[in-house]
Protein backbone atom coordinates (compact mmCIF):
# COMPACT_ATOMS: atom_id res chain seq x y z
CA UNK A 1 0.00 0.00 0.00
CA UNK A 2 2.76 2.37 0.89
CA UNK A 3 4.43 1.67 -2.41
CA UNK A 4 1.21 2.46 -4.27
CA UNK A 5 0.90 5.79 -2.48
CA UNK A 6 4.53 6.64 -3.10
CA UNK A 7 4.16 5.78 -6.76
CA UNK A 8 1.10 7.99 -6.98
CA UNK A 9 2.91 10.89 -5.36
CA UNK A 10 5.91 10.63 -7.65
CA UNK A 11 3.62 10.27 -10.65
CA UNK A 12 1.71 13.35 -9.63
CA UNK A 13 4.81 15.51 -9.64
CA UNK A 14 6.10 14.05 -12.87
CA UNK A 15 2.69 14.55 -14.40
CA UNK A 16 2.49 18.18 -13.32
CA UNK A 17 5.73 18.96 -15.07
CA UNK A 18 4.61 17.18 -18.22
CA UNK A 19 1.47 19.24 -17.84
CA UNK A 20 3.35 22.52 -18.17
CA UNK A 21 4.97 21.40 -21.39
CA UNK A 22 1.76 19.99 -22.80
CA UNK A 23 -0.02 23.21 -21.86
CA UNK A 24 2.55 25.19 -23.78
CA UNK A 25 2.09 22.92 -26.78
CA UNK A 26 -1.69 23.14 -26.57
CA UNK A 27 -1.50 26.93 -26.29
CA UNK A 28 0.45 27.22 -29.49
CA UNK A 29 -1.72 24.65 -31.19
CA UNK A 30 -4.83 26.52 -30.21
CA UNK A 31 -3.52 29.88 -31.25
CA UNK A 32 -1.67 28.89 -34.42
CA UNK A 33 -2.57 25.31 -35.37
CA UNK A 34 1.08 24.36 -35.19
CA UNK A 35 2.66 21.59 -33.16
CA UNK A 36 5.64 23.49 -31.92
CA UNK A 37 8.55 21.12 -31.44
CA UNK A 38 10.76 24.11 -30.87
CA UNK A 39 8.96 24.50 -27.58
CA UNK A 40 11.62 22.39 -25.89
CA UNK A 41 14.29 24.64 -27.34
CA UNK A 42 12.50 27.81 -26.33
CA UNK A 43 11.96 26.49 -22.84
CA UNK A 44 15.59 25.47 -22.65
CA UNK A 45 16.77 28.89 -23.76
CA UNK A 46 14.51 30.56 -21.25
CA UNK A 47 15.81 28.22 -18.58
CA UNK A 48 19.40 29.12 -19.41
CA UNK A 49 18.46 32.75 -18.93
CA UNK A 50 16.81 31.85 -15.65
CA UNK A 51 19.91 29.85 -14.74
CA UNK A 52 22.21 32.83 -15.35
CA UNK A 53 20.07 35.16 -13.30
CA UNK A 54 19.38 32.81 -10.42
CA UNK A 55 22.96 31.60 -10.14
CA UNK A 56 24.27 35.15 -10.17
CA UNK A 57 21.72 36.64 -7.85
CA UNK A 58 21.20 33.52 -5.80
CA UNK A 59 17.46 34.14 -6.00
CA UNK A 60 15.48 31.44 -7.76
CA UNK A 61 12.37 33.54 -8.08
CA UNK A 62 14.24 36.29 -9.88
CA UNK A 63 15.54 33.65 -12.26
CA UNK A 64 12.03 32.32 -12.76
CA UNK A 65 10.76 35.78 -13.53
CA UNK A 66 13.45 36.27 -16.12
CA UNK A 67 12.81 32.83 -17.56
CA UNK A 68 9.13 33.67 -17.97
CA UNK A 69 9.83 37.03 -19.55
CA UNK A 70 12.66 35.64 -21.64
CA UNK A 71 10.54 32.68 -22.73
CA UNK A 72 7.67 34.98 -23.63
CA UNK A 73 9.90 37.31 -25.62
CA UNK A 74 11.50 34.40 -27.38
CA UNK A 75 8.09 32.92 -28.17
CA UNK A 76 6.91 36.22 -29.54
CA UNK A 77 10.13 36.55 -31.51
CA UNK A 78 9.81 33.09 -33.00
CA UNK A 79 6.33 33.93 -34.20
CA UNK A 80 7.20 37.39 -35.39
CA UNK A 81 10.40 36.69 -37.24
CA UNK A 82 9.78 33.13 -38.20
CA UNK A 83 6.30 31.72 -38.27
CA UNK A 84 4.90 34.78 -40.01
CA UNK A 85 7.36 34.38 -42.83
CA UNK A 86 6.73 30.68 -42.92
CA UNK A 87 2.99 31.09 -43.23
CA UNK A 88 3.40 33.63 -45.96
CA UNK A 89 5.34 31.14 -48.04
CA UNK A 90 4.35 27.67 -47.02
CA UNK A 91 0.61 27.85 -47.08
CA UNK A 92 -0.30 25.65 -49.99
CA UNK A 93 0.14 22.12 -51.15
CA UNK A 94 0.52 18.92 -49.21
CA UNK A 95 3.55 20.35 -47.42
CA UNK A 96 1.38 22.90 -45.66
CA UNK A 97 0.55 20.21 -43.09
CA UNK A 98 4.08 19.06 -42.40
CA UNK A 99 6.07 22.19 -43.20
CA UNK A 100 5.41 23.91 -39.87
CA UNK A 101 6.35 20.73 -38.02
CA UNK A 102 9.61 20.51 -39.91
CA UNK A 103 10.26 24.19 -39.48
CA UNK A 104 9.86 23.96 -35.74
CA UNK A 105 12.17 20.95 -35.68
CA UNK A 106 14.71 23.05 -37.54
CA UNK A 107 14.19 25.81 -35.06
CA UNK A 108 14.77 23.39 -32.21
CA UNK A 109 18.12 22.50 -33.75
CA UNK A 110 18.95 26.14 -34.24
CA UNK A 111 18.19 27.14 -30.67
CA UNK A 112 20.07 24.13 -29.41
CA UNK A 113 23.16 25.05 -31.41
CA UNK A 114 22.99 28.64 -30.24
CA UNK A 115 22.68 27.49 -26.65
CA UNK A 116 25.57 25.08 -27.15
CA UNK A 117 27.71 27.84 -28.61
CA UNK A 118 26.86 30.17 -25.78
CA UNK A 119 26.83 27.95 -22.74
CA UNK A 120 28.61 24.82 -23.95
CA UNK A 121 27.40 21.28 -23.55
CA UNK A 122 28.16 20.95 -19.86
CA UNK A 123 25.45 20.20 -17.37
CA UNK A 124 24.22 23.09 -15.26
CA UNK A 125 22.11 22.98 -12.16
CA UNK A 126 19.77 25.45 -10.60
CA UNK A 127 19.42 25.69 -6.85
CA UNK A 128 15.94 24.46 -5.98
CA UNK A 129 13.63 27.12 -4.50
CA UNK A 130 12.29 24.73 -1.90
CA UNK A 131 13.56 21.79 0.05
CA UNK A 132 13.94 18.58 -1.89
CA UNK A 133 13.82 16.59 1.31
CA UNK A 134 10.77 14.40 1.43
CA UNK A 135 8.24 15.08 4.17
CA UNK A 136 8.56 12.71 7.06
CA UNK A 137 5.36 11.26 8.41
CA UNK A 138 5.93 9.31 11.59
CA UNK A 139 9.02 7.31 10.85
CA UNK A 140 8.78 7.10 7.07
CA UNK A 141 10.00 9.70 4.64
CA UNK A 142 7.70 9.93 1.64
CA UNK A 143 8.99 10.88 -1.79
CA UNK A 144 7.12 14.14 -1.75
CA UNK A 145 8.96 17.31 -0.89
CA UNK A 146 8.22 20.98 -0.55
CA UNK A 147 9.53 21.36 -4.09
CA UNK A 148 7.00 18.85 -5.37
CA UNK A 149 4.22 20.69 -3.63
CA UNK A 150 5.45 23.93 -5.12
CA UNK A 151 5.44 22.45 -8.59
CA UNK A 152 1.90 21.18 -8.24
CA UNK A 153 0.67 24.50 -6.89
CA UNK A 154 2.36 26.42 -9.68
CA UNK A 155 0.85 24.19 -12.33
CA UNK A 156 -2.60 24.59 -10.84
CA UNK A 157 -2.34 28.35 -10.75
CA UNK A 158 -1.15 28.52 -14.33
CA UNK A 159 -3.87 26.17 -15.47
CA UNK A 160 -6.64 28.11 -13.79
CA UNK A 161 -5.26 31.38 -15.10
CA UNK A 162 -5.05 30.10 -18.63
CA UNK A 163 -8.47 28.50 -18.54
CA UNK A 164 -9.99 31.77 -17.40
CA UNK A 165 -8.07 33.62 -20.07
CA UNK A 166 -9.25 31.38 -22.87
CA UNK A 167 -12.83 30.73 -21.87
CA UNK A 168 -13.76 33.99 -20.22
CA UNK A 169 -11.92 36.78 -21.94
CA UNK A 170 -12.13 38.38 -25.31
CA UNK A 171 -8.41 37.86 -25.78
CA UNK A 172 -9.01 34.15 -25.39
CA UNK A 173 -11.78 34.19 -27.93
CA UNK A 174 -9.64 36.25 -30.29
CA UNK A 175 -6.82 33.74 -29.89
CA UNK A 176 -9.05 30.86 -30.80
CA UNK A 177 -10.67 32.68 -33.70
CA UNK A 178 -7.33 33.72 -35.18
CA UNK A 179 -6.17 30.14 -35.05
CA UNK A 180 -9.20 28.52 -36.59
CA UNK A 181 -10.06 31.03 -39.27
CA UNK A 182 -7.67 33.96 -39.58
CA UNK A 183 -9.53 35.51 -42.46
CA UNK A 184 -12.85 35.60 -40.69
CA UNK A 185 -11.19 36.85 -37.54
CA UNK A 186 -9.64 39.70 -39.51
CA UNK A 187 -13.01 40.58 -40.96
CA UNK A 188 -14.30 40.72 -37.41
CA UNK A 189 -11.69 43.36 -36.66
CA UNK A 190 -9.22 41.18 -34.81
CA UNK A 191 -5.53 41.87 -35.29
CA UNK A 192 -4.78 38.25 -35.90
CA UNK A 193 -1.05 38.60 -36.34
CA UNK A 194 -0.58 40.33 -33.02
CA UNK A 195 -3.04 38.03 -31.35
CA UNK A 196 -1.12 34.99 -32.44
CA UNK A 197 2.12 36.50 -31.31
CA UNK A 198 0.54 36.95 -27.91
CA UNK A 199 -0.42 33.28 -27.97
CA UNK A 200 3.17 32.31 -28.71
CA UNK A 201 4.42 34.60 -25.99
CA UNK A 202 2.13 33.07 -23.37
CA UNK A 203 3.20 29.58 -24.42
CA UNK A 204 6.83 30.65 -24.29
CA UNK A 205 6.38 31.93 -20.76
CA UNK A 206 4.71 28.71 -19.64
CA UNK A 207 7.55 26.77 -21.28
CA UNK A 208 10.02 28.85 -19.29
CA UNK A 209 8.28 27.89 -16.07
CA UNK A 210 8.36 24.24 -17.09
CA UNK A 211 12.07 24.43 -17.82
CA UNK A 212 12.91 26.13 -14.54
CA UNK A 213 10.87 23.71 -12.46
CA UNK A 214 12.24 20.62 -14.18
CA UNK A 215 15.75 21.89 -13.88
CA UNK A 216 15.47 22.80 -10.23
CA UNK A 217 14.97 19.10 -9.64
CA UNK A 218 17.45 17.92 -12.25
CA UNK A 219 20.07 19.40 -14.55
CA UNK A 220 20.21 21.53 -17.63
CA UNK A 221 21.92 20.85 -20.92
CA UNK A 222 21.09 21.62 -24.53
CA UNK A 223 19.31 18.27 -24.60
CA UNK A 224 17.85 17.98 -21.16
CA UNK A 225 14.31 19.01 -22.09
CA UNK A 226 13.90 16.65 -25.05
CA UNK A 227 12.19 13.93 -23.10
CA UNK A 228 9.92 16.49 -21.54
CA UNK A 229 8.92 17.57 -25.03
CA UNK A 230 8.12 14.05 -26.15
CA UNK A 231 6.10 13.24 -23.06
CA UNK A 232 4.49 16.67 -23.04
CA UNK A 233 3.38 16.11 -26.60
CA UNK A 234 2.07 12.64 -25.90
CA UNK A 235 0.20 14.05 -22.92
CA UNK A 236 -1.29 16.79 -25.05
CA UNK A 237 -2.42 14.23 -27.59
CA UNK A 238 -3.93 12.05 -24.91
CA UNK A 239 -5.78 15.04 -23.55
CA UNK A 240 -6.97 16.15 -26.94
CA UNK A 241 -4.99 19.03 -28.33
CA UNK A 242 -7.90 21.41 -28.13
CA UNK A 243 -8.36 21.34 -24.41
CA UNK A 244 -6.13 22.74 -21.71
CA UNK A 245 -7.84 20.75 -19.00
CA UNK A 246 -7.28 17.77 -21.25
CA UNK A 247 -3.61 18.59 -21.51
CA UNK A 248 -3.30 18.53 -17.75
CA UNK A 249 -5.34 15.39 -17.29
CA UNK A 250 -3.41 13.72 -20.08
CA UNK A 251 -0.16 14.68 -18.42
CA UNK A 252 -1.28 13.33 -15.06
CA UNK A 253 -2.52 10.10 -16.63
CA UNK A 254 0.78 9.71 -18.42
CA UNK A 255 2.92 10.75 -15.45
CA UNK A 256 1.19 8.41 -13.04
CA UNK A 257 0.94 5.61 -15.62
CA UNK A 258 4.62 5.79 -16.40
CA UNK A 259 5.60 5.91 -12.77
CA UNK A 260 3.62 2.76 -12.09
CA UNK A 261 5.37 1.09 -14.99
CA UNK A 262 8.71 2.29 -13.68
CA UNK A 263 8.00 1.05 -10.21
CA UNK A 264 6.29 -2.21 -10.98
CA UNK A 265 7.65 -3.30 -14.35
CA UNK A 266 10.98 -1.67 -15.09
CA UNK A 267 12.53 1.23 -16.90
CA UNK A 268 13.09 -0.43 -20.20
CA UNK A 269 9.35 -0.56 -20.70
CA UNK A 270 8.77 3.10 -19.96
CA UNK A 271 8.80 4.25 -23.54
CA UNK A 272 6.73 1.38 -24.73
CA UNK A 273 4.52 2.00 -21.73
CA UNK A 274 4.01 5.58 -22.85
CA UNK A 275 3.13 4.36 -26.28
CA UNK A 276 0.70 1.81 -24.93
CA UNK A 277 -1.06 4.36 -22.75
CA UNK A 278 -1.37 6.62 -25.77
CA UNK A 279 -2.70 3.92 -28.09
CA UNK A 280 -5.18 2.72 -25.50
CA UNK A 281 -6.56 6.19 -24.97
CA UNK A 282 -6.70 7.01 -28.65
CA UNK A 283 -8.33 3.73 -29.61
CA UNK A 284 -11.15 4.57 -27.27
CA UNK A 285 -11.21 8.29 -28.02
CA UNK A 286 -9.36 9.10 -31.25
CA UNK A 287 -9.31 12.82 -30.52
CA UNK A 288 -8.17 12.62 -26.92
CA UNK A 289 -10.05 12.25 -23.68
CA UNK A 290 -11.51 15.72 -23.74
CA UNK A 291 -12.75 15.49 -27.32
CA UNK A 292 -16.21 16.74 -28.02
CA UNK A 293 -18.32 14.75 -30.46
CA UNK A 294 -17.24 14.93 -34.05
CA UNK A 295 -18.72 17.81 -35.95
CA UNK A 296 -21.00 17.18 -38.89
CA UNK A 297 -19.37 16.06 -42.06
CA UNK A 298 -21.96 17.05 -44.64
Amino acid at each position, binding site marked *: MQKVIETLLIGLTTGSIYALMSLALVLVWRSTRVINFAQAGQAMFATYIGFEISSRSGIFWLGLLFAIVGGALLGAGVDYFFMRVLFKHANTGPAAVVAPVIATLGLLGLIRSVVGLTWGGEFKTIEAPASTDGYTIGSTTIPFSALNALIIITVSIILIGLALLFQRT*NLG*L*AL*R*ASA*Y*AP*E*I*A*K*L*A*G*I*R*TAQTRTIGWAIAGGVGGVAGMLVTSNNFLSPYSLDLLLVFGFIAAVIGGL*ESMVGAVIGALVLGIGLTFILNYVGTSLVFIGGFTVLILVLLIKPDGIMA*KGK*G*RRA
Partner: protein
Amino acid sequence: MSGLAVTRLNVSHGAIHALHDITFSVEPGQLAAVIGSNGAGKTTLLRTLSGLKDASSGAAQWENREMLGVKPEDLVRRGISHVSEGKSVIPELTVKENLVLGGIWRGDKADTAQAIEEVVELFPRLGERMSQSADTLSGGERQMLAIGRALVSRPKLLLLDEPSLGLAPLVIEQIFQTVDHLRHKLGLTVVLVEQNAMSALEIADIGIIINLGHVVATGKAKELIDDPALRAAYLGY
Protein backbone atom coordinates in the same frame (compact mmCIF):
# COMPACT_ATOMS: atom_id res chain seq x y z
CA MET B 1 -18.62 62.81 -51.59
CA SER B 2 -18.43 60.99 -48.35
CA GLY B 3 -19.73 57.54 -49.31
CA LEU B 4 -17.88 54.88 -51.20
CA ALA B 5 -15.98 55.87 -54.32
CA VAL B 6 -14.12 53.36 -56.45
CA THR B 7 -12.01 54.64 -59.31
CA ARG B 8 -10.25 52.68 -62.03
CA LEU B 9 -9.70 49.70 -59.82
CA ASN B 10 -7.65 46.86 -61.27
CA VAL B 11 -7.12 43.53 -59.57
CA SER B 12 -5.33 40.39 -60.69
CA HIS B 13 -5.10 36.83 -59.48
CA GLY B 14 -1.61 36.02 -60.67
CA ALA B 15 -1.91 35.99 -64.42
CA ILE B 16 -5.70 36.36 -64.41
CA HIS B 17 -6.76 39.96 -64.67
CA ALA B 18 -10.01 39.74 -62.71
CA LEU B 19 -11.13 43.39 -62.53
CA HIS B 20 -10.56 46.06 -65.16
CA ASP B 21 -10.84 49.75 -64.39
CA ILE B 22 -13.84 49.37 -62.13
CA THR B 23 -15.38 52.74 -61.34
CA PHE B 24 -18.54 53.46 -59.37
CA SER B 25 -19.70 55.29 -56.32
CA VAL B 26 -22.29 54.78 -53.62
CA GLU B 27 -23.78 57.64 -51.63
CA PRO B 28 -23.99 57.23 -47.86
CA GLY B 29 -27.13 55.36 -46.94
CA GLN B 30 -27.57 53.92 -50.38
CA LEU B 31 -27.82 50.26 -51.25
CA ALA B 32 -25.85 49.22 -54.30
CA ALA B 33 -26.49 45.87 -55.91
CA VAL B 34 -23.58 44.36 -57.78
CA ILE B 35 -24.88 41.92 -60.34
CA GLY B 36 -23.02 39.56 -62.63
CA SER B 37 -22.75 35.97 -63.63
CA ASN B 38 -20.36 33.43 -62.16
CA GLY B 39 -16.75 34.49 -62.39
CA ALA B 40 -17.61 38.07 -63.23
CA GLY B 41 -15.42 39.34 -60.44
CA LYS B 42 -17.96 40.28 -57.81
CA THR B 43 -16.29 38.41 -54.99
CA THR B 44 -12.93 39.77 -56.02
CA LEU B 45 -14.34 43.30 -55.84
CA LEU B 46 -15.62 42.84 -52.30
CA ARG B 47 -12.46 41.15 -51.11
CA THR B 48 -10.44 44.05 -52.43
CA LEU B 49 -12.69 46.58 -50.75
CA SER B 50 -12.41 44.83 -47.40
CA GLY B 51 -8.63 44.62 -47.60
CA LEU B 52 -8.36 40.85 -48.02
CA LYS B 53 -6.97 41.19 -51.51
CA ASP B 54 -4.43 43.65 -52.89
CA ALA B 55 -5.30 45.78 -55.87
CA SER B 56 -2.80 46.30 -58.66
CA SER B 57 -3.91 49.87 -59.37
CA GLY B 58 -6.70 52.32 -58.80
CA ALA B 59 -8.27 53.90 -55.79
CA ALA B 60 -11.14 53.25 -53.43
CA GLN B 61 -12.29 55.69 -50.79
CA TRP B 62 -14.70 55.43 -47.93
CA GLU B 63 -15.70 58.64 -46.21
CA ASN B 64 -13.01 60.40 -48.20
CA ARG B 65 -10.20 58.21 -46.92
CA GLU B 66 -8.30 55.69 -48.95
CA MET B 67 -9.18 52.04 -48.30
CA LEU B 68 -6.72 50.26 -50.52
CA GLY B 69 -3.63 49.03 -48.76
CA VAL B 70 -5.37 49.16 -45.39
CA LYS B 71 -5.59 45.91 -43.45
CA PRO B 72 -9.04 44.33 -43.07
CA GLU B 73 -8.91 44.66 -39.30
CA ASP B 74 -8.32 48.40 -39.61
CA LEU B 75 -11.11 48.81 -42.12
CA VAL B 76 -13.46 47.21 -39.61
CA ARG B 77 -12.50 50.02 -37.27
CA ARG B 78 -13.57 52.45 -39.94
CA GLY B 79 -17.01 50.88 -40.02
CA ILE B 80 -16.64 48.42 -42.85
CA SER B 81 -17.95 44.90 -42.39
CA HIS B 82 -17.66 42.17 -44.96
CA VAL B 83 -19.68 38.98 -44.98
CA SER B 84 -17.61 36.85 -47.27
CA GLU B 85 -18.91 34.29 -49.70
CA GLY B 86 -19.97 30.92 -48.43
CA LYS B 87 -21.17 31.02 -44.84
CA SER B 88 -18.19 32.56 -43.19
CA VAL B 89 -18.53 31.30 -39.67
CA ILE B 90 -15.94 29.67 -37.47
CA PRO B 91 -17.18 26.13 -37.03
CA GLU B 92 -15.04 25.41 -33.98
CA LEU B 93 -16.64 28.18 -31.95
CA THR B 94 -20.14 28.26 -30.56
CA VAL B 95 -22.82 30.40 -32.14
CA LYS B 96 -22.54 32.83 -29.26
CA GLU B 97 -18.78 33.09 -29.61
CA ASN B 98 -19.06 33.70 -33.32
CA LEU B 99 -21.34 36.60 -32.56
CA VAL B 100 -19.24 38.00 -29.72
CA LEU B 101 -16.28 37.96 -32.04
CA GLY B 102 -17.80 40.75 -34.09
CA GLY B 103 -17.81 43.04 -31.07
CA ILE B 104 -14.37 42.39 -29.65
CA TRP B 105 -12.63 45.23 -31.40
CA ARG B 106 -14.91 47.78 -29.85
CA GLY B 107 -14.19 46.52 -26.37
CA ASP B 108 -17.67 47.40 -25.17
CA LYS B 109 -19.18 44.28 -23.63
CA ALA B 110 -22.54 45.79 -22.82
CA ASP B 111 -23.02 47.11 -26.30
CA THR B 112 -21.92 43.81 -27.82
CA ALA B 113 -24.54 42.05 -25.72
CA GLN B 114 -27.11 44.55 -26.93
CA ALA B 115 -26.07 44.04 -30.54
CA ILE B 116 -26.32 40.28 -30.13
CA GLU B 117 -29.84 40.65 -28.80
CA GLU B 118 -30.75 42.64 -31.86
CA VAL B 119 -29.34 39.94 -34.10
CA VAL B 120 -31.31 37.27 -32.29
CA GLU B 121 -34.43 39.29 -32.76
CA LEU B 122 -33.67 39.30 -36.45
CA PHE B 123 -32.83 35.58 -36.63
CA PRO B 124 -34.65 33.83 -33.79
CA ARG B 125 -33.22 30.50 -34.93
CA LEU B 126 -29.77 31.63 -33.83
CA GLY B 127 -31.18 32.34 -30.40
CA GLU B 128 -32.18 28.70 -30.07
CA ARG B 129 -28.70 27.53 -31.09
CA MET B 130 -26.67 29.96 -28.97
CA SER B 131 -24.44 27.48 -27.14
CA GLN B 132 -24.25 24.95 -29.94
CA SER B 133 -21.00 24.72 -31.85
CA ALA B 134 -21.34 26.42 -35.20
CA ASP B 135 -20.37 23.35 -37.15
CA THR B 136 -23.64 21.69 -36.32
CA LEU B 137 -25.62 24.39 -38.07
CA SER B 138 -27.32 23.76 -41.38
CA GLY B 139 -26.16 25.65 -44.43
CA GLY B 140 -28.77 28.33 -44.05
CA GLU B 141 -28.27 28.78 -40.36
CA ARG B 142 -24.61 29.43 -40.99
CA GLN B 143 -25.44 32.17 -43.43
CA MET B 144 -27.60 33.83 -40.81
CA LEU B 145 -24.82 33.59 -38.32
CA ALA B 146 -22.31 35.15 -40.70
CA ILE B 147 -24.54 38.13 -41.29
CA GLY B 148 -25.29 38.37 -37.62
CA ARG B 149 -21.61 38.49 -36.79
CA ALA B 150 -21.06 41.35 -39.22
CA LEU B 151 -23.95 43.27 -37.69
CA VAL B 152 -22.53 42.91 -34.21
CA SER B 153 -19.58 44.94 -35.48
CA ARG B 154 -22.07 47.80 -35.94
CA PRO B 155 -20.86 48.68 -39.41
CA LYS B 156 -21.51 51.79 -41.44
CA LEU B 157 -20.66 50.10 -44.70
CA LEU B 158 -21.81 46.53 -45.12
CA LEU B 159 -20.35 44.37 -47.88
CA LEU B 160 -22.52 41.33 -48.49
CA ASP B 161 -21.40 38.55 -50.80
CA GLU B 162 -24.32 36.46 -52.02
CA PRO B 163 -26.20 36.34 -48.74
CA SER B 164 -29.04 34.43 -50.35
CA LEU B 165 -26.88 31.47 -51.27
CA GLY B 166 -28.48 28.31 -50.00
CA LEU B 167 -31.24 30.02 -48.11
CA ALA B 168 -34.91 29.20 -48.17
CA PRO B 169 -37.06 31.60 -50.15
CA LEU B 170 -38.75 32.85 -47.03
CA VAL B 171 -35.44 33.56 -45.40
CA ILE B 172 -34.05 35.23 -48.48
CA GLU B 173 -37.03 37.48 -48.48
CA GLN B 174 -36.49 38.11 -44.82
CA ILE B 175 -32.82 38.87 -45.32
CA PHE B 176 -33.49 41.30 -48.09
CA GLN B 177 -36.09 42.94 -45.92
CA THR B 178 -33.64 43.04 -43.09
CA VAL B 179 -30.97 44.64 -45.21
CA ASP B 180 -33.48 47.17 -46.40
CA HIS B 181 -34.62 47.77 -42.86
CA LEU B 182 -31.11 48.11 -41.44
CA ARG B 183 -30.25 50.58 -44.08
CA HIS B 184 -33.18 52.78 -43.30
CA LYS B 185 -32.99 52.43 -39.56
CA LEU B 186 -29.24 52.70 -39.13
CA GLY B 187 -28.36 54.62 -42.22
CA LEU B 188 -26.13 51.79 -43.37
CA THR B 189 -24.47 51.94 -46.73
CA VAL B 190 -24.64 48.51 -48.36
CA VAL B 191 -22.89 46.85 -51.26
CA LEU B 192 -24.81 43.71 -52.03
CA VAL B 193 -23.40 41.14 -54.41
CA GLU B 194 -26.08 38.89 -55.82
CA GLN B 195 -26.87 36.45 -58.54
CA ASN B 196 -30.44 36.71 -57.47
CA ALA B 197 -30.60 39.85 -59.59
CA MET B 198 -34.29 40.58 -59.38
CA SER B 199 -34.65 40.52 -55.63
CA ALA B 200 -31.48 42.50 -55.17
CA LEU B 201 -32.36 45.23 -57.61
CA GLU B 202 -35.81 45.49 -56.12
CA ILE B 203 -34.45 46.82 -52.85
CA ALA B 204 -31.40 48.54 -54.29
CA ASP B 205 -30.98 52.21 -55.03
CA ILE B 206 -28.38 51.68 -57.66
CA GLY B 207 -27.21 48.69 -59.62
CA ILE B 208 -23.79 47.89 -60.98
CA ILE B 209 -23.59 45.18 -63.56
CA ILE B 210 -20.25 43.46 -64.03
CA ASN B 211 -19.29 41.09 -66.76
CA LEU B 212 -15.90 39.45 -67.16
CA GLY B 213 -14.31 42.00 -64.88
CA HIS B 214 -15.74 45.08 -66.59
CA VAL B 215 -18.55 47.33 -65.43
CA VAL B 216 -21.06 47.05 -68.24
CA ALA B 217 -23.78 49.19 -66.74
CA THR B 218 -24.50 51.32 -63.73
CA GLY B 219 -27.53 53.35 -62.86
CA LYS B 220 -30.65 53.58 -60.82
CA ALA B 221 -31.82 50.11 -59.95
CA LYS B 222 -35.33 50.67 -61.30
CA GLU B 223 -33.95 51.81 -64.61
CA LEU B 224 -31.75 48.78 -64.94
CA ILE B 225 -34.64 46.47 -64.27
CA ASP B 226 -36.63 48.13 -66.95
CA ASP B 227 -33.91 48.08 -69.59
CA PRO B 228 -34.89 45.19 -71.82
CA ALA B 229 -31.44 44.84 -73.33
CA LEU B 230 -29.80 44.41 -69.95
CA ARG B 231 -32.51 42.07 -68.81
CA ALA B 232 -31.88 39.78 -71.72
CA ALA B 233 -28.11 39.92 -71.56
CA TYR B 234 -27.30 39.89 -67.87
CA LEU B 235 -30.28 39.51 -65.65
CA GLY B 236 -31.39 36.24 -67.10
CA TYR B 237 -35.07 36.77 -67.66
